[in-house]
Structure formats: C-alpha cells, structure tokens
C-alpha cells in the first residue's frame, strides 16, 4: 500500500468513525461531538495557515466572527433565509480575510502576529461599538425558523450532528487534498524557507495571501455554521481568547498534520469539560497545557505520533 493510499484510508476511517459514533455514544457525547466537529473545522482552517504555511496569526477570531455575524446580522436585519445568509457569512469572511491578509502580509514574524491581533481587537471593539445592532457581549439568538436548511431543521439533534459531520468531512478532505497538491507543496516550501521558494521563482506573497484567504474563509464558514447549528451569535467569539483557542488546538493536536486539528479539539474540549467540574478557573488548565506543550512536545500529539510510529502519516 502506498503512503497516499494509507492516508486516504485514514481520512475515510476518521469520517466513518464519526458516523458510527452517533449511533453508539450516549446523547450527551453526541451533542459534544457536533460542537467539536464545527470547532474542528475552525481548527482545520487555522492549521492550513499555521501548520502548512508557517504564518502564526493571533487574529483568527475576526474571521470566525465575520462568518458568524455575516450570517446572523443578515438574518436579523435583512430577513435573509438560511442558504443566502450562509453565503453572506462565507463572503464576509472571504472579504475580511483578503483585506487583512493584504495588509498584514506586509509584515512577517512577530509583527505579523501583532498586526493580526490588533485587527482582531479592532474588530471585536467594533462589534461592541455597534451594540445596538449586534447586541454586544450579550449577543442574540438566531430564530429557530431561520435554522432550516434544504428542509432540514438544524435545531434538531440528529440533523445537527449530520450537518456538522458533512461540513467537517468536506473541509477535512478538501484541505487534505489541497496540501498534497502543487499549491500546498509550495506553501510548505515557503514555510520551510521562504527565500529559497522565492529564488525558485514562486511569487511567495501571492501564495501567502491565497493561504490567508483560504484559511480565513474556512474559519468564517465554521463561525457561520456555529451560529446556525447552535442558534447564537455573540461578541465573545470575537475576543482574543477565540483567536488563541485554534492555536492551542492545532499545537496540541499537531501542526501541519491533517488529523491534528480534530485530535486537538477533542482533547481540549474534554479537558476543559472535565476540569470545569472541578474549578471555575478552567483556563488555568489551558495555560498549563500550552506551557508544557512548548516545553516537551512542540510537534503536538499527531506530530509526535508521526515522528515515532507512523512515518507515513499525512
């Protein structure tokens, strides 16, 4: 079996496992899993930029929120139905990420992190500033009547789970495919040595901009889906914390691996779920995990697995 066949099998296996999980796991965990799959889409988007292109953004919450508010506000203010509102969410994330990418890519390294952080912060404050429309921190509920897509009521647990599964599978397989394509290979080359990639004649700035737009749009789709599936949009999702979460998930799961984002989200989700039973200061766990990761396992769970056991892993 070739490596690419093995990867194909692994990816389909993961999806099959998630499909079966719906029928065997108790209701509580099924509910968790649908949330995890949507957040994993966010992490997949983040991983595309951080893991494969080597750009560390601290402002992805802006793209997530762009999708979320693109969908939510177009429903609230302009009475759009589900499918067009979803397109508005996707389009706003695409536009926002293109603009931010264009500006932020003038810098690199630490400056890139700070510029993205600042833009995201400005975005968060803007949401608060227009509190009369966005309802600020309090957020707003998306009416159940608006949450029907192609005749499926997405507030229903079963429909929600499979909608999340479909979205996850599409993004998961598409990104796995994309990073094996010549375009994805070029991004990895830029990550490893940008100077050399430029010397070989690649337009690295254009490539990086495309990567930011793809990554931001996937994050935005996750945001729109989150609002749609769980019926709520709020400014909390635009805070710095939501920019740090995907970084945490991807680092934990393994940056630059296809299954890393999913593993990271599952691990982190249950870690916080369990620790919030014990203490209200559950972000302490996140902090400790971050420090331990940077010290002992900078490659993440899937990364360490790849290094030690499955060398073929994508």
């Amino acid at each position, binding site marked *: 079996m070739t490596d690419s066949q093995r990867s194909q099998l692994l990816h389909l296996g993961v999806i099959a496992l998630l499909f079966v999980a719906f029928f065997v796991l108790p209701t509580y965990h099924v509910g968790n899993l649908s949330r995890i799959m949507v957040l994993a889409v966010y992490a997949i988007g983040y991983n595309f930029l951080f893991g494969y292109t080597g750009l*560390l953004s*601290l402002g992805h919450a802006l793209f997530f929120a762009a999708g979320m508010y693109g969908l939510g506000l177009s429903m609230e203010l302009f009475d759009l139905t589900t499918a067009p509102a979803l397109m508005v969410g996707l389009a706003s994330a695409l536009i926002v990420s293109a603009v931010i990418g264009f*500006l*932020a890519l*003038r*810098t690199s*390294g*630490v*400056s890139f*992190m*700070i*510029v993205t952080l*600042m*833009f995201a*912060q*400005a975005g968060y*404050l*803007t949401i*608060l*500033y227009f509190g009369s429309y966005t309802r600020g921190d309090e957020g707003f509920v998306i009416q159940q009547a608006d949450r029907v897509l192609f005749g499926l009521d997405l507030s229903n647990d079963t429909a929600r789970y499979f909608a999340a599964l479909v979205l996850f599978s599409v993004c998961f397989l598409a990104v796995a495919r994309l990073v094996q394509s010549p375009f994805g290979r070029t991004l990895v080359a830029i990550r490893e040595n940008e100077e050399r990639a430029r010397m070989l004649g690649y337009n690295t700035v254009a490539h990086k901009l495309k990567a930011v737009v793809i990554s931001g749009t996937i994050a935005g789709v996750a945001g729109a889906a989150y609002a749609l599936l769980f019926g709520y949009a709020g400014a909390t999702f635009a805070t710095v914390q939501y920019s*740090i979460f995907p*970084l945490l998930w991807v*680092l934990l799961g393994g940056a630059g691996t296809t299954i890393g984002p999913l593993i990271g989200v599952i691990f982190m989700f249950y870690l916080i779920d369990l620790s919030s039973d014990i*203490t*209200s*200061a*559950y*972000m*302490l766990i*996140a*902090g*400790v*995990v*971050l*420090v331990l*990761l*940077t*010290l002992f396992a*900078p490659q993440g769970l899937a990364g360490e697995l790849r290094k030690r056991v499955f060398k073929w892993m994508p």
Partner: protein
Amino acid sequence: MDFGPHLLLASLEGAVTAAILALTAMGLSIVFGVMRVVNVAHGEFYMLGAVIAWWVTSLIGGHPAIGFVLALGIAPLLVGFLAAAADKVILQKINYDPDRTIVATIGLLYIIQQTTLMTFGPDARPVQPPFNTRIALPWFEFGDAGFAMYWPWGLSITSYKLFVIMAAIGILTALWLVITRSKIGLIMRATQLDSETALAFGVPVDRVYMWVFGLGAGLAAVGAVLVVPIQQAHYLMGHDPLLLAFITVIIGGLGSLPGTVIAAILIGMSDGIISVFFSPTLAKIIATLVVAMVLAFRPQGLLGRTAH
C-alpha cells in the same frame, strides 16, 4: 464647564494615564530591546503587582501610607523574582524561539490570571491612597471685566494623581541613568547589541536575560502599584495595559526607549482627551487600527532604526 477647563481636566487625566503607561510600556520595551522577546504575559505581571499591593496594604493596616510604601517596595520585587524564575524555567529551555516564546507566554498569561482568580477571587478590591487632598485649579479668562481668574466647578486634581506623575518621571529618570551610566546598564546594552560577542567577553548572557525579564515585569508592577489607589485591583485588569503597552512600544519603535516614552505621552494624553470627548470604545478602535497600520506601513515605528 467650558471647553477650555474641560480640555485642561482631560489632559491632566491623560497625563496620569501616560505616566502609568510609560512605566508599563518601558518594561515591555526593555525586554524586547535586550532579549528580542515578545512577552504576552506582561499585562498579568502588572495585574499581579496590583493584587500584591492590595494584599500588602490589607495585611499591614494602620495609616494607608505605611502599607502603600511597603507595597511599592515588595510588589515589584516579588513580581520581578517570579518573572525571572519563569524565564529560567520556561523561556530559557526553549531558547527564546520567537513563535514558541509567544505561545509559552500566552500559557503563562492564563496560569497567572486563573491562579489569581482562584485565590484572590473575581471581585475588584480597592487600595486606600496614602494621601488624597483635592486641589482645585484656577482658570483664566478674558471677560467683560477684562482679565479674570476664577475657579470653575469640577476642575481639580488630587494630590495623589500629581504624585503618580512625579513618581513616574522620577523612576524613568533613574532607569535612564542606570542604563546609560552604570556598569549594569553597560552589560545590558552589550547583550542587546550582540549577545554572542558579549558572551565571549564574559558577560553571563543567560543571567542578564533572566534579570532583564524580571526588571521588565517589575516595572509593570510599579505602574500597577501606583495605579491601584485610583483603579482597584481585579484579576482581569492586565488586559488593557497589555494592549496599550504593545501599542506604545510599536508606535515608539520596537526597542527604542526614548521612543517608548514619547509614544506613551502621545497615546496616554490622546487616550485621555479622546475618551472625554468621544466614546472610549471608539478611542480604542482608532488606536488599535493606527497601530496595525503603523506596523504594516512603517514597521520600524516612529523613532525606530531602519533595517535590522
């Protein structure tokens, strides 16, 4: 109040913000200048300074001035030692790799913040200022009766706020003298210029890094102790100073100390003035956007050197 007195009041409030900001941002700037490290946990060291100040003053009792003076000594020292320890245990182990340092300090941020939440609790707690007399300020005007001086209602500042401005000026001057005139400063500047050559000349670079990191955190704590009688201690109070300090350091030019002070005055004053006349949220939106644009179009900042 008329526009004139109102503006004077706003600039006085702005000067207090600028004084605290200059101290906090200076800590960040020194750490970045010498070590090339972006310390995301800087705001939490600030918060820790305020919390320790509350703890010391509430333990001591008696006249508020005794507790305050003790806090001004103890809090920066404790915070400095803690930061130096964190540097040794975490940052030195990952060799100050830029990406990993940011991630590690984000982790540190949550550890400090959440530990404070668990021990200190979610409430904001006040600290008594050591002295707090209200000083009314006069205003001059050309009226029908010619030149006249009067005391507009509400135009005043407390003696404590004046003290904060003076203290910040004093500390920054002392810091400036240490860095430019003393042996310690010479070692710091040598490490900043070229750490490998400095190492070859027998400078213990690792120890310098450790104490510079401690010094940076200590400066943030000093700012926090000064501000806590005005603002109250709270476990989330490190958020805004971190952002503002970042903005200041970037506008002033990464690693340029005079630039940091000038930027702190500029930003503190304009933040005070804009917040009085417009919405504070709008002021912050403008400030963050300006920073992002400055970084994108003039990465060296206002006073930074070109091309590293």
